[in-house]
């Protein structure tokens, strides 16, 4: 049963991760900073999974990136694009609607 729960939790977290990332990308951030922000917000991030997600979002032109080499080490900074902002709005709407549906279904279970 624990394995079933763990798998479900991992799938939920991965689905939500993309939405969480675009929500915090109003200003340019690099990978470690994104992980820290998400962890501070209560969303535990598997460090190995963040960068492939960022790559996917970049391929979909939801994020854009630029290497910054002036600091102590080269860093790839990400920022949300204009089309990314439109996608974020749609994702948030879809997420809230799904959340609302689950809450109403939960009421059926608890009998409230």
């Amino acid at each position, binding site marked *: 049963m624990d394995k079933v729960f763990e798998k479900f939790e991992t799938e939920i977290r991965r689905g939500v991760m993309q939405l969480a990332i675009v929500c915090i990308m109003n200003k*340019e951030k*690099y*990978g*470690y900073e994104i992980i820290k922000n998400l962890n501070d917000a209560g969303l535990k991030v*598997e*460090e*190995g*999974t963040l*960068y*492939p*997600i960022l*790559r*996917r979002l970049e*391929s979909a*032109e939801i994020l*854009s990136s*630029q290497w910054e080499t002036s600091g102590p*080490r*080269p*860093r*790839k*900074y990400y*920022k949300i*694009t*204009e089309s990314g902002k439109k996608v974020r709005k749609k994702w948030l709407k879809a997420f809230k609607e799904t959340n609302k549906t689950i809450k109403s279904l939960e009421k059926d279970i608890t009998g409230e």
Partner: protein
Amino acid sequence: MGLKQREEVARELKTHILDSADVIAAEKNVEVDDAIIREVILRMGPASEVANLYPEEKTFLDKTLFALKVVGLYTFIFAVAFGIVWNLLRIYFKNLQYDSTTILIMVIFYLVFLAIYLILRFKLISKLFRRNDEF
């Protein structure tokens, strides 16, 4: 994963590992050492699993081969269609000759239809005018 993508991923992950190591070292009030680096790498999970999560990106060779396939298929279809049209026209216009003018017309039609096909197939116009956000 192509070479360019691998190099970029490696560069980014290296920076992440060093940033994480700095934080852990600061928490422990020590210098970054091999043990801390190993700890960070372990936290990231097996390299093969991380690599599998990356989206497949076509290399320049993949894109070139794909473009050649597309153009090759189009050329084949065009040749068949042109052959059929030409033979039909020859039935009605007995004096029709296969000369330099015909070849020129054929080449012009080929290029025009190829351009239209490529624009529609790859949505080139919308890509050309899409604005890219820059920092």
